[in-house]
């Protein structure tokens, strides 16, 4: 399902990263562990296609994303990849529900209200639907980030340090939610972190 071969990225500054090959089967989950500065976020951005690889090949669901043109890549990403960022990103002028709608709007025009409400119910976002995102607490924002990463039922969910701002209890909760939602969608889940606490939740690890 997800396969990388001989992946390398070189920053204009000269700094370069070589990545171990990844080979994930359908619905498989992977934890990528490593200290800061080894290119974890770079790997995540390469996998999502928002950063072009300097060398190597990334195949997701039989599509070689390194060979797609910009527009097709945008479309592919919108449909198949759910990104959960380390920093919370959202449209400031929109409410929680509107942000979710925007994520559902593109590119398939998939405006599944039931999906949205069910997901929000499970993530405890239902009472927050009409609030603006900047009024939410850290934990609420994190749950919204998960919802934004999963609402469109992507084939691959990529999460960057999803637990770094959370205490132990919330950390376990968030990981459980992520795994559960990924399982419900039948998605691959790739979590990139330096957080040793979540090691035990995953069977397959990749150390960078």
């Amino acid at each position: 399902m997800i396969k990388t071969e001989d992946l390398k990225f070189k920053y204009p500054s000269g700094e370069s990263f070589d990545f171990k090959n990844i080979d994930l089967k359908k619905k498989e989950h992977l934890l990528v562990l490593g200290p800061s500065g080894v290119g974890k976020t770079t790997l995540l951005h390469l996998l999502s296609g928002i950063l072009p690889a300097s060398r190597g090949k990334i195949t997701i669901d039989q599509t070689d994303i390194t060979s797609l043109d910009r527009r097709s890549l945008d479309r592919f990403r919108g449909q198949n990849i759910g990104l959960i960022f380390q920093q919370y990103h959202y449209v400031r002028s929109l409410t929680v529900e509107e942000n979710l709608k925007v994520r559902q709007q593109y590119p398939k025009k998939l405006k599944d209200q039931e999906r949205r409400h069910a997901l929000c119910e499970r993530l405890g976002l239902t009472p927050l639907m009409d609030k603006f995102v900047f009024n939410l607490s850290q934990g609420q924002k994190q749950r919204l980030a998960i919802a934004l990463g999963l609402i469109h039922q992507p084939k691959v969910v990529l999460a960057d340090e999803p637990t770094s701002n959370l205490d132990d209890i919330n950390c376990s909760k968030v990981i459980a939610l992520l795994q559960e939602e990924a399982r419900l969608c039948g998605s691959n889940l790739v979590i990139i972190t330096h957080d040793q606490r979540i090691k035990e939740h995953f069977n397959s690890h990749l150390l960078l």
Partner: protein
Amino acid sequence: MSLIFNVLLLVLSVSLVTFILQLSQQINGQLEKNIAPVDMVIGAKGSPLQLVLSSVLHIDSPTGNIPLGEVQKIQKHPFIKSAIPLCYGDNHQGYRIVGSKASFIAAYQGELESGKIFQKSFEVVAGSNVAQKLNLQMGSTFYSSHGLIASADVHKEHQFRVVGILKPTATVLDKLLITPMESVWETHHHTEAEPDNTASHPSHHNSHSNEEHPDHHQDESHEEDAHEHETEDHPDSEESEMDLEITALLVKFKNPVGLVQLPRFINEKTNMQAALPRLEIQRLEGFLGVGVKTVNSIALAVLLVSGLSILLSLARAIRERRQELALLRTYGLSTQKLLYMILLEGLFLAVLGYVLGWIIGRAAIGIASSQLESTFGYGLKVTGPEIIDFKLLGATLLIALIATMLASTSIFKLNISKILSDD
């Protein structure tokens, strides 16, 4: 905040441009309509512009009077199709009473709203504006005041009676009270000896005793010219007509050659002057045109500046929102889609600014209209959007489009990875 300021700037420039355009267009249109029935005007010597302003547009003081006998000779000229005499003297509450013939009303396509055209002396046909402002009805009566501006100097001998009211024509007719010439002559026949302190009025005075001017007033010099030659100029006129005077004669030519020949003949060979309204108005517009052009260029400059400042503030807005734009890219939106969104925003602001500006421009026309009406008796019409307004809208949208395009170049080089991992 800066975006609101930019829209305001746009509103200001659009309202200025539309206002000036409307103002000059309507004034030109009105002038055009008012001078159309008159190819040439004959009056007492003086400034030709003044003659046109007073006798065709009815806003300035007349240059003086001319003998009717003299005029009647000219009137027989084969090039002349029609000639309408005008006779000034009095006003009613500031509205001019013009002595003329029914053909004067016909020349401006005046139609009766009610009543009939005057047949006898002291019957009056009122223009629609006057009738409305002074609340004149059929059968209303009034006394005239001497001169052309409202005064306490009322002629109590003769009572005018309204016999007809005209429909609005959007010409000078609307602000005039029209009566047979005899009314004016008769009024002043009795008051001739009174000292005058206002603009000239036709009077039935002895043209041979021109050492003593009963009409002694601001147009003195022209009158003197006029009177000095009277004796030698019409020795063979009929006695009764020789004594009568009119203020001006409005001439329409049969043959355009008349435009070339007659004015020169009249100006050189008689003690009267002939002025061509079209020429004089063109001259006047030449003076005013500079002002209109200046204001227009200022307004256009403001429009360009507002385009430029929209460019700058949009560029900044895009920079401020680059995280959201990058996020939308990860949602699958292409660069083109983002560009389209920003263009839509820019065009929306432009349309908003234009519409507000247009409304303010028209409101300003409304305000200017009441000002002008009280000063000149001419109002302006607040009209709906015209072709020129759509052209201007097109220009505004084009400026906004270019500004937005230039401002949004940065979204082509959006480094999503970097933007989304920066704090």
